[in-house]
């Protein structure tokens, strides 16, 4: 017997009832009596000394009430704030600006328009300084030191390495074949539909409430308490509906702090909402990895070793949101789906005159960079060996019986069946027929390519023995209350930004408690009511808070079993949980539903037992989870224009137990489109003066329905052995896996011309140039 809305059912999303009717409640919908508006003066220079800031004219603009400068904050020790990576960033600069569009001053006014007029009236005199936009140049001797405030007088933020350096060197030296590729994964921006913003308000008792666009409200509350010195019980963070986060709403931006300062200064609630240009030019960026990878194999195609060196451009501060122990995130999943015996990875974080970079953009802490690297270079190696890339992968995959598998770089993969996923993708796409078609087309001079990506993800951060952010362990939580009528409310430490938590969490609880998901309310995002948690990013909600939901529900079941035994006048040991109710073993008619038990919990509970039916769980996962998949992309290239057309894209994903197949499919569709984007369209780059090029949607090309192909999705199911329901998380899989499949397909189409790699985004111009250089157009 199934419960309505249980695990595995494609029920419609509960939250869509308000979203599709335009009834969502976002930060900009918050309107308070007497509310003021904050707008920000931003630097036109990427690096400059501030000679003076003249606010006299701005204060004369009708409606302008205050202007905040760095020196005003300095007096309160608020000019700088810590980043989540224990670096520091400016709220407002006192002496120097470090990137174009950096916040320089804030204007508070009684309308959005007056605030903007005030911004235009603030006079700032700058002395331009030498700009460093290239991280390689930043590391050269004699380069300007961008952060003289640090003890280490270098632009290298940190060096991090893992693996067996000497063993890897030796193994590569002894390999029959070694391939090296230099790969650049450019800066990209999350560009969520809703930009960042907040409303800050102090009540008469001095309690601060901030409605803000954050993916991690509890951690933000703690950071606010530490930075501002406010007692934590006097801070309430409310994260209402969020229009997309993708990692971009994890960091603390200066605008949030400025709104709080402005509310304190004026005694009024203050709203700050970024415009689109501010969002794309100044908020944290992702990727920007300069990667050099070498891979070795025996002559018969057996992988031997992998060496990866990377320069990570973090902009002027390391404001990434990685776990403390991993400054390069989980990039050392770069051995991917293969059992290398030897591997070594080193990464150098570097300062440049750019906005903070290194945030995870739907990639679970640098996993996209890792998957792209290994899946690109494995393809290059297969080509060098003259082997089919599918055959090469099949020959080298970690076999299913090897799980749990310890990788050369220290991870313990929980479960996997890589051969099964690739075989399924090959069957769906009819791989052999495609190869025949390609050979025929190549004879006719037509350009067709087939690309494979068999990625392994690593998500669900994470076990407390290894994972923390600013010392906060990366558990997550669920608190459940069953009401007397058998309905329930559950609160979580995570925060949905569109993932569908209100539905999927309710489905987990429905399955565990035998209550229809329709009868379970889910709440997140209010620090005054929800249990503490680290938030939603890096595909961690299902592996952590989803697991907490199961465990908390099982705690409730433990108590419910005792109540049921009391009602049925049997021993608890005589009962079994079957068909979503407690029944006497062997006597299925003698049973109690959760609704009956809940009523008794408040009206007829056993003597000596506390009333009520509640539980809370703070779930500390024993391990991470390792979703995986195999994608096959088929492209045709127009020789006249260089345009790449994706003819087919088959995505076989394995995220363990699936809670709601329809939501998972939606996640994969969105993720594939977000994987297509950097492969073919998106890039944020800078001119030599540090001007951001691509700072608007005129130049930063997001994929629309026109550019997006028809995605063909399928699944295999290999449950995680350590997650209570076997789920692994899926939010980022497709974004992680898609770029390599697309690039491999394009390179495959051009390989006979001697092309081994093209840096992303692969624009028509890049392809057209190659075709002309190779005289193939």
């Amino acid at each position: 017997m199934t419960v309505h809305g249980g695990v595995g059912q494609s029920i419609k999303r509960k939250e869509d009832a308000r979203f599709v009717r335009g009834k969502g409640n976002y930060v900009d919908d918050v309107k308070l009596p007497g509310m003021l508006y904050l707008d920000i003066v931003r630097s036109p220079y990427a690096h400059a000394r501030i000679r003076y800031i003249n606010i006299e004219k701005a204060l004369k603009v009708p409606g302008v009430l205050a202007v905040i400068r760095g020196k005003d904050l300095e007096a309160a020790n608020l000019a700088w704030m810590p980043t989540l990576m224990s670096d520091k960033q400016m709220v407002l600069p006192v002496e120097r600006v470090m990137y174009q569009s950096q916040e320089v001053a804030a204007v508070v006014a009684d309308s959005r328009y007056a605030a903007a007029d005030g911004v235009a009236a603030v006079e700032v005199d700058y002395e331009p300084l030498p700009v460093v936009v290239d991280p390689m140049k930043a590391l050269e001797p004699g380069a300007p030191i961008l952060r003289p405030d640090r003890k280490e007088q270098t632009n290298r933020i940190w060096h991090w390495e893992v693996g067996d350096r000497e063993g890897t060197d030796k193994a590569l030296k002894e390999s029959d074949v070694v391939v090296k590729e230099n790969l650049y994964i450019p800066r990209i921006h999350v560009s969520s539909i809703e930009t960042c913003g907040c409303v800050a308000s102090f009540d008469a008792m001095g309690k601060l409430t901030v409605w803000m666009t954050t993916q991690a409200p509890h951690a933000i509350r703690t950071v606010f308490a530490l930075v501002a010195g406010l007692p934590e019980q006097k801070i309430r963070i409310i994260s209402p509906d969020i229009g997309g986060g993708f990692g971009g709403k994890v960091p603390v931006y200066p605008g949030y702090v400025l709104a709080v300062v402005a509310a304190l200064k004026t005694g009024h609630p203050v709203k700050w909402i970024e415009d689109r240009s501010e969002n794309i030019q100044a908020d944290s960026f992702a990727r920007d990895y300069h990667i050099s990878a070498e891979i070795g194999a025996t002559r018969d195609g057996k992988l031997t070793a992998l060496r990866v060196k990377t320069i990570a451009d973090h902009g002027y501060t390391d404001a990434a949101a990685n776990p403390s122990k991993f400054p390069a995130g989980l990039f050392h999943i770069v051995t991917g789906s293969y059992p290398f015996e030897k591997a070594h990875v080193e990464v150098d974080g570097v300062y440049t005159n750019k906005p903070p970079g290194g945030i995870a953009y739907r990639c679970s802490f640098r996993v996209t960079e890792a998957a792209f690297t290994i899946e690109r270079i494995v393809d290059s190696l297969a080509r060098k060996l003259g082997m089919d890339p599918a055959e090469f992968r099949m020959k080298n995959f970690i076999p299913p019986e090897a799980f749990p598998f310890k990788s050369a770089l220290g991870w313990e993969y929980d479960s996997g069946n890589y051969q099964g996923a690739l075989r399924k993708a090959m069957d769906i796409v009819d791989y052999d027929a495609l190869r025949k078609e390609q050979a025929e087309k190549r004879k006719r001079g037509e350009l067709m390519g087939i690309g494979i990506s068999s990625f392994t993800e690593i998500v669900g951060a994470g076990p407390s023995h290894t994972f923390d952010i600013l010392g906060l362990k990366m558990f997550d939580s669920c608190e459940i209350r069953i009401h007397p009528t058998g309905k329930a409310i559950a609160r979580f430490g995570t925060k949905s930004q569109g993932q569908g938590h209100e539905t999927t969490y309710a489905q987990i609880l429905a399955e565990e408690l035998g209550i229809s998901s329709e009868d379970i309310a889910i709440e997140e995002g209010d620090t005054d009511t929800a249990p503490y948690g680290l938030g939603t990013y890096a595909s961690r909600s299902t592996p952590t808070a989803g697991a907490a939901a199961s465990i908390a529900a099982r705690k409730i079941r433990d108590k419910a079993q005792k109540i049921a035994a009391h009602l049925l006048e049997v021993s608890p040991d005589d009962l079994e949980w079957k068909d979503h109710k407690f029944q006497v073993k062997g006597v299925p008619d003698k049973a109690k539903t959760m609704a009956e038990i809940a009523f008794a919990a408040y009206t007829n509970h056993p003597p000596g037992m506390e009333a009520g039916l509640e539980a809370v769980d703070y779930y500390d996962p024993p391990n991470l989870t390792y979703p995986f998949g195999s994608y096959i992309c088929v492209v045709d290239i127009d020789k006249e224009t260089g345009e790449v057309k994706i003819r087919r894209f088959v995505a076989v994903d394995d995220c363990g137990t699936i809670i709601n197949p329809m939501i998972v499919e939606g996640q994969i569709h969105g993720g594939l489109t977000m994987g297509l984007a950097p492969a073919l369209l998106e890039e944020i780059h800078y001119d030599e003066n540090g001007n951001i090029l691509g700072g608007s949607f005129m130049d930063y090309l997001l994929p629309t329905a026109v550019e997006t192909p028809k995605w063909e999705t399928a699944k295999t199911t290999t449950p995680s052995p350590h997650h209570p329901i076997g789920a692994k998380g899926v939010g980022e899989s497709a974004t992680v896996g898609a770029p390599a499949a697309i690039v491999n397909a394009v390179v495959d189409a051009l390989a006979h011309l001697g092309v081994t790699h093209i840096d992303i985004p692969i624009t028509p111009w890049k392809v057209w140039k190659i075709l002309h250089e190779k005289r193939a157009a």
Partner: protein
Amino acid sequence: MHFEGTFTVRASSTRVWSFFLSPQEFSSAIDDPHTIEVIDADHFRGTIKAGVAFIRGTFTWSATVKERVPPERAQMAVHGSGMGSAFDIVATLSVSESAGLTTVKWAADVQMSGTIATTGARLLQGTTEKKTNAFFENARKMLEGA
């Protein structure tokens, strides 16, 4: 961005040189609405309403004459800001006269920063070139008409 050009004008080199060093005169060759205030012989400042595509607004600017070698050459530095943007121009002028015609060689190094460089990047080169050419064409007409 670097721009340069050459044009000839039917006027003496002394007249041409003094035209480009006189703020009241050279400013009349600027098409965009503007104001100008002379601080001293080598320093001027003012405002100009200009922009690229839809990014338009008022910029404040100040200019300093860096070099004067009458009637042969001159160099001027201009700094402007506004609309979340800034620009710096270093312009050089070289003047030579032959057979009643004066040849003017000019060069300008332009550095744009901020919104106008970011959002208007694709149109910046063309717009700047167009405005520069218009300025010198206006100047030529004024010099020949005078």
